[in-house]
């Protein structure tokens, strides 16, 4: 099947989308959005300088029609989500978003009901547009390089004024082998400092549930869960986290979950390997002390 990836030069995301594309075709084409050096070997590579779906959808629709792509693969990121619906209308094509798995017989999986259920689909017509959820497919190695052909864009309904990268101190959540996450049960922004202390001792990172983010206790990019980051640490400390299915969706790849919660009926214990039913204000300092004792 003639397959197209549309993504920025981010090699991690491109790698994940390349893994998906190989289920449909051994070698695909790519439209790279924005600037930067493109890694990987593709049949054809195009480049659009803009990354905003509204500005580029007409040109991309025309190109997809001209080249006759049957499967169009994007990521479930702000960029991919900004483009998928507009392309679907332009191409009169079905679209499946937030795809988490595709079997060898091309049955496509998508989580629904806050990841409490999984729906399975098969494609009945082409072209088909897919947006792929981050971290659910192993990133392919992107060897080689491919020259890109520029695609000019005629209109600019949206002007990008500024792009502000999050301040990163320490290990990024996506790469952390230990994550200490706080939920609403942590109670305040100040109380997150003790979680930071534990994370630092374990050379890990601090995350937050959506509830804690909504309270303003941590920045939005620290959110773990269905609409936040998907993480895959060796150990995941869930502190004062209730364990809503939407949060658990982001930690499905965590090897070991340690739940600390004073509510013995909290749902997080159903996902945990180890549980401590206690006020975290007692348990976390005790773990910190024990770690210091060990040295």
């Amino acid at each position: 099947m003639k397959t197209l990836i549309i993504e920025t030069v981010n090699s991690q995301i491109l790698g994940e989308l390349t893994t998906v594309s190989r289920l449909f075709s051994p070698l695909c084409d790519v439209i790279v959005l924005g600037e930067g050096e493109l890694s990987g070997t593709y049949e054809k590579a195009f480049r659009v300088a803009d990354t905003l779906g509204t500005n580029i959808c007409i040109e991309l629709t025309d190109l997809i029609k001209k080249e006759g792509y049957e499967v169009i693969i994007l990521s479930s990121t702000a960029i991919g989500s900004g483009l998928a619906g507009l392309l679907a209308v332009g191409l009169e094509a079905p679209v499946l978003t937030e795809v988490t798995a595709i079997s060898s017989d091309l049955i496509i999986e998508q989580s629904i009901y806050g990841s409490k259920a999984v729906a399975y689909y098969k494609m009945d017509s082409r072209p088909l547009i897919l947006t792929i959820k981050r971290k659910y497919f192993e990133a392919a190695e992107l060897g080689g390089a491919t020259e890109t052909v520029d695609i000019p864009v005629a209109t600019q309904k949206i002007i990008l004024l500024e792009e502000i990268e999050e301040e990163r101190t320490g290990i990024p959540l996506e790469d952390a082998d230990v994550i200490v996450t706080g939920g609403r049960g942590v109670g305040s922004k100040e109380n997150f400092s003790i979680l930071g202390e534990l994370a630092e001792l374990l050379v890990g990172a601090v995350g937050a549930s959506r509830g804690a983010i909504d309270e303003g206790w941590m920045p939005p990019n620290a959110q773990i869960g269905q609409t936040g980051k998907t993480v895959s640490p060796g150990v995941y400390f869930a502190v004062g986290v209730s364990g809503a299915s939407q949060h658990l969706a982001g930690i499905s790849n965590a090897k070991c979950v340690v739940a600390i919660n004073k509510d013995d009926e909290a749902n997080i214990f159903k996902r945990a390997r180890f549980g401590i039913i206690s006020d975290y204000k007692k348990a976390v300092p005790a773990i910190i002390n024990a770690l210091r004792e060990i040295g």
Partner: protein
Amino acid sequence: MHIVVLAKVVPDYEIPSSDFKLVENRAHAKYKRMIGLYDENAIEVGVQLKEKYAADLTIVSYGSSGDVQFLRKGVAMGADKIVLIEGTSDDPYTTAVNLQKGIETLGEIDVILAGRQSSDMDRGIVPGLLAGLMKYAFVPQICALENEGGGWKVTQITETGLRLMKVTGRAVFSVTSIPENKPRIPAVRAIFSAKKKPVEKLSEKEEPLTNISEISVSIPLVESVCEFIPTEAIDETARILLSRLKEERYL
């Protein structure tokens, strides 16, 4: 200025996984219903814009007749009226086409807000489809917006930070949650007066479904046996935990 907020009534999204049941591939009808999680953030943003710009604010929904009682919460929060297009399809195209039908009865619209994704199907695709159908600009995952010189200055939350943009013309924005758009709790008086606000019901426009077959829906099995560590002496609890993590080679 006329602002539209899209809202969908969904089964209780806080039901724990262990209690969740499916009937004919959809959530059991026994769960209480409510406006979707992010849709409430979008309504809050709409109400803040209404207050700032003295705008009209309409909630447009595609769903069943019984959804009106739940959508009234949005009116109690500050919306002026509800337009409900009656239908039961889960198909995103059908939903978008019918929302467009409802919106087009309202005359000139300046901006359409939606939650970043519904709390049942979790697709986040309907706002983009609607923007495509209406030939509006579209920006997903915004957390702030203000009217500036006839256009919109918006802030989008991305995976790596923020993007500030200027959008000209009419637009659809999907809203993500931040502390500043935490849904307000309506006053009792507002809840009562919401019952008197107008509700316009429209019949569904029948559209061919998206050409994708849903084969099945299942509830994934999560097998995890939690080992509870005794907490009589918390220092000992911590030592046991670390020891167990090391024994099992997690640390």
